[in-house]
């Protein structure tokens, strides 16, 4: 790689629970290349300056969802964020609204529990073996391009958690199930192959779920994949209400 003349001051939030009472900031002055992403700067520091800096990353192509961090106070996917967008100095911190494990690594177990709660899988009334009349001779369900289009956008979530870091409700109400989990539950509600919406709507009507959302829209603004979780939350609310109203009039069926 060509020698670079440009230098940058990179400030990283450091925290090791074995040694530190509170997180502290550490500054690094490093040479940078014009085409670097923020992640490249962190990796340079890790490899050449300070190997104790801890962060998560893998694909460096904005699809594995590992490298979400706060960059100058905004949640960003660091492999997708150009260093050239920042002048002179940059401040990198772990994603907001999550407990810090160490340095730039956050504890995401809470999200994993919320994620599972919305039953993010196809629910069918019958087991596959009893469901054969709904499958074609190739063993697949029929789904038109239009039916696919109704949920496709919400299936694009890479679980990077930027939306949780941006969400003003989570900040005050940590148990709020949150934008990504609602979007993923809603994605299955919209899927023509799924029959589990009743169950998910009950979850959406429960405490700390869709109705906690104040519709601030920050989640959709920071989403690096244009999933638009705010739209999903709003649609999920509506679906849950309609389902509840139907329940008042009609007798309940199955799941």
């Amino acid at each position, binding site marked *: 790689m060509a020698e670079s003349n440009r230098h940058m001051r990179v400030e990283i939030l450091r925290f*090791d629970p074995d040694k530190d009472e509170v997180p502290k900031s550490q500054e690094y002055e490093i040479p940078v290349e014009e085409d670097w992403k923020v992640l490249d700067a962190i990796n340079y520091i890790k490899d050449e300056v300070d*190997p104790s800096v801890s962060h998560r990353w893998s*694909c460096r*192509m904005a*699809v594995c969802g590992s490298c979400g961090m706060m960059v100058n106070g905004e949640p960003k996917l660091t492999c997708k964020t150009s260093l050239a967008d920042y002048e002179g100095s940059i401040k990198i911190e772990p994603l907001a609204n999550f407990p810090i494990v160490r340095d730039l690594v956050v504890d995401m177990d809470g999200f994993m529990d919320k994620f599972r709660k919305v039953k993010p899988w196809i629910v069918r009334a019958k087991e596959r073996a009893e469901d054969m009349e709904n499958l074609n001779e190739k063993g697949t369900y029929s789904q038109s*391009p239009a*039916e696919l289009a109704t949920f496709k956008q919400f299936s694009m979530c*890479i679980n990077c958690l930027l939306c949780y870091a941006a969400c003003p409700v989570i900040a005050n109400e940590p148990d709020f199930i949150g934008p990504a989990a609602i979007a993923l539950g809603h994605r299955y509600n919209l899927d023509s*192959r799924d029959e589990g919406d009743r169950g998910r709507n009950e979850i959406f009507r429960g405490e700390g779920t869709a109705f906690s959302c104040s519709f601030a829209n920050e989640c959709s603004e920071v989403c690096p994949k244009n999933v638009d979780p705010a739209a999903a939350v709003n649609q999920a609310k509506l679906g849950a209400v309609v389902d509840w109203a139907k329940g008042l009039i009609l007798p309940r069926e199955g799941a």
Partner: protein
Amino acid sequence: MVQVSRHDIVIVGGGGAGLRAAIAAAEANPDLSVALVSKVYPMRSHTVSAEGGAAAIARDDDNLELHGFDTVKGSDFLGDQDVIEYFVENAPRELALLENWGCPWSRNDDGTVATRAFGGMSTKRTWYATDKVGFHMLHSLFQQSMRYDNIVRYDEYFVSKLLVEDGACQGVAALEIRTGEFHAILGRSVILATGGAGKIFPFTTNGTIKTGDGMALAYRAGVPLKDMEFVQYHPTGLPGTGILITEAARGEGGFLRNNKDERFLVEYDYGVGDKAELGPRDMVSRAIIQEFEAGRGFENRYGNYCAVDLRHLGEDHIDSKLPFVRELAKTYMGVDPVHEYIPIRPVVHYMMGGVDTDINAATDLPGLFAAGEVACGSLNGANRLGSNSLTECLVFGAAAARSALDFAQGASEGDQARLVAQVEEEAARVDALRGNGKGNEQISALRTEMNSAMELGCGVYRNQDTMQVAADETRNIRQRVGDLHLKDTSKVFNTELISALELENMVELAEVLALGAAHRKESRGAHTCRDYPTRDDQNFLYHTLAHRTEDGPRLGRKEVKLGHWEPQERKY
């Protein structure tokens, strides 16, 4: 203090193959306990980065014989034909199951699953979900796996040793990355599904987690590695980063162009007319290098490159079929393929070789199974066809689960005290490595040295002398990896320590790869040796086996299982 947990099946790796195996095992019997151990959360696994599609016959103009022969021919006749037949037969059912589990496959107007053209495939049999197929498959599998209460996940646990007692694999030693504590995760059988090892090379499509851990684990436990010299260079990676531009870009009608703006592949005769760009990856990668050597490559700060040209497809087609290609080209190359060429060059993508397995995904070590890129069941031979590997994860992930369940039924629980003692010993070894300031080798410097040796010796075109140099250098690097200098003494999420363990794994594999390459004095599939430019069935129609010894790899041979497809000249 080592923590002990006991399961029936222990799966290492949470990508396509590991998740498929976990679901198959969990489904088979709700009373079984299935451990899924991964150094990352499963949805971060590198399956996520696959783009173009997954192959299985679906159309009326297709059949098992065609898919089988395409795969055999693509393998340059080094594929085992019984394995290939099993694969093509089971492929359609596996992809249909994934559909049932919610994978958003792209559709035809009549509601059936759509298929697209791919290199070396004689008809459209590649199922796709736009150009994010690996992402959608991985997330569908992971989300499906969450419904099973009997899958117990160990997220962010690094497996550093297989536990072998009484001649059988009975569990793993795993470092919990968050706490730095070791766990003995015991089972009646173990499945490796840790993916490939692209990171032994400097320029690769692979994510940073692709460090060949499972291959090294098996190799150290005495299981041979097979055909490691066969490394797939994908023709189209972005210069600098190595980010993949999917083969679907060509499948959807894109052209490759040189600096004279010529569709140069027309001259190479890998396919006629519309199919000129649809040659297999090994051949197209060689054609690009030949263009560079003839002075017909473009040049930028990263060296020579050619171009993918999608402009004639139009914005609507690009956005509906290749939206991720457009996003990647814009974000990482600063070009919009609707109006501009996408710069590309061949890039390390996939290991055809791996842990030697049979048609049942079983290794030589009782109780140990392997599936996906970590394994070499010889589906892919000397060159894998694009879109066969995602399906391979499913077909052989499921097969590994069945085999592991069969084995587990007859297996005893093993001697827990001896197994735990092994983990204590491993914990002591890793504790000594953590923050070890006495060593002399810097991790990143030694990694760079290994990367350079591999790039020089084991590229698209190889020479006998440079392969030998790579073999010598990697041996030297392997000997020095015991002298690493570490600075981070913390037990909490110590990624420097993980990097050291990963480097230990990679240097073992690099040596096997370079040595295997130097010994194969012919050109077959992805192994192209300038000194021996033709295939030599007389002397080299065999699999290379590498056994570990203290002095380095000991090479041996294994017979190729031929069948009703006779070896013939490989022409397209």
